């Protein structure tokens, strides 16, 4: 780890501690175990269990930057990154440009696409949607 990254982590860590110990009386004490932490510990593999809070903060900033780079305005990107659970952050930071993104291309385009695919499959003799009687 670079010295600069280490410094960033230290600063973020200290300010987070300052933030979280200010509010609640008993619940925010260092030893308290959160519901999410217990669920993460129970969950089998496949989930980023117990992601470090500092890592989550860095990943959240990364997601925010990625959203902005993809055209989301700054305020919305910040609110959206803040709304994501820790467990989703790393995957989004890594691959928000590759994950499935539902966005109807319009029904006409869709129908055209499906038609072309079927035509191609028929042509390749995989299906017989249009060439039903010509076998």
């Amino acid at each position, binding site marked *: 780890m670079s010295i600069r990254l280490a410094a960033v982590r230290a600063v973020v860590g200290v300010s987070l501690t300052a933030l979280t110990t200010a509010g*609640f*009386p*008993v*619940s925010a*004490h*260092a*030893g*308290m*175990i*959160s*519901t*999410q*932490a*217990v*669920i993460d*510990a*129970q*969950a089998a593999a496949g989930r980023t269990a*117990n992601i470090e809070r500092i890592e989550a903060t860095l990943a959240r900033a990364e997601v925010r930057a990625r*959203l902005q*780079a*993809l*055209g*989301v305005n700054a305020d*919305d990107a910040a*609110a*959206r990154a803040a*709304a*994501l*659970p820790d467990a*989703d952050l790393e*995957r*989004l930071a890594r691959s*928000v*440009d590759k*994950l*499935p*993104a*539902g*966005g*109807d*291309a*319009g*029904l006409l385009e*869709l129908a055209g*696409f*499906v038609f072309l*695919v079927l035509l191609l499959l028929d042509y390749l003799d995989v299906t017989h949607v249009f060439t039903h009687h010509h076998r």
Partner: protein
Amino acid sequence: MSGRASRSLACCALLLAQAGCSTQLLRDAGAMQPDVAIAHIAYFPQREHQCGPAALATLLTATGEAVSPDALTREVYIPGRSGSVQAEMLAATRRHARIALELEPELRALLQELEQGRAVLVLQNFGLPSLPLWHYAVVVGYDRGRDALLLSGANGRPQRLAARRFMGTWRRAGKWAFMALRPGELPVAASAVHYLDAVAALETLGQREDAFTSYQAAVGRWPAEPLAWFALANNRLAAGRNAEAEAAYREVLRVQPNHLPARNNLALLLAHRGCIAEANAVLAPARAAAENGPFATQFADSWREIQALGAASPVCRPL
């Protein structure tokens, strides 16, 4: 002769079975009613690439949260992707004070929720596995006789889609589906942990009282599930309702005496009430059992804190 007869019989049976498979998907998946059509569905005409915001608006509106696709565009649409990603669809649902609960990837699970009057948002892939064309839609009913599902259409009308075709597009999208539950509303068939996980995600966003309502419903449905009581206890603690929290931690330990996180949190709570001896007794099994366990650090921190509080020889105050 008899061999030939049995062969043709087997052939018939196979044909029938195949016919059955291709036309009775809903019946095979346990559809209980002849047809289901969910009330209060708002259909929104879609702008280009905006099926995410439109589908989410339909889903949320069906649960009583009236919100427009335009407002949701700012919460889920990614211009550079011309679409919306799944994690943000779930996150935006929580921002509107609804529990985002992913369904088991089975048609049966989807039908069960529809029968309870709940709309379900699904991801579909109209392309090929290698050349995907992702699309969100809301399933708002089914027609068992025609073996078809009703989906919120792109043109502001419900759309009938043959179950066989729907299953093709849904399977290529990993059979992903989720619904939006009002606080305190329970699903038909989710496991306790799955439900609590979804509620905890809502709670993390700061919706503490909504989570409280849901945890109360959870302990009602799953009274023997320690995690439900534990979540309720932590929620009450965060609300400053220490007596309620303490009672709920004790419920955890009643159904599972070796629930170490509950012992840890209860011990801290007791120590802050001045009850040092009991705090030590409650925490002792946790410290003994989990030298290298997942929460060893917290147990050690709690132990130190209890000793520090005990140094002032406080009086154990009644609840």
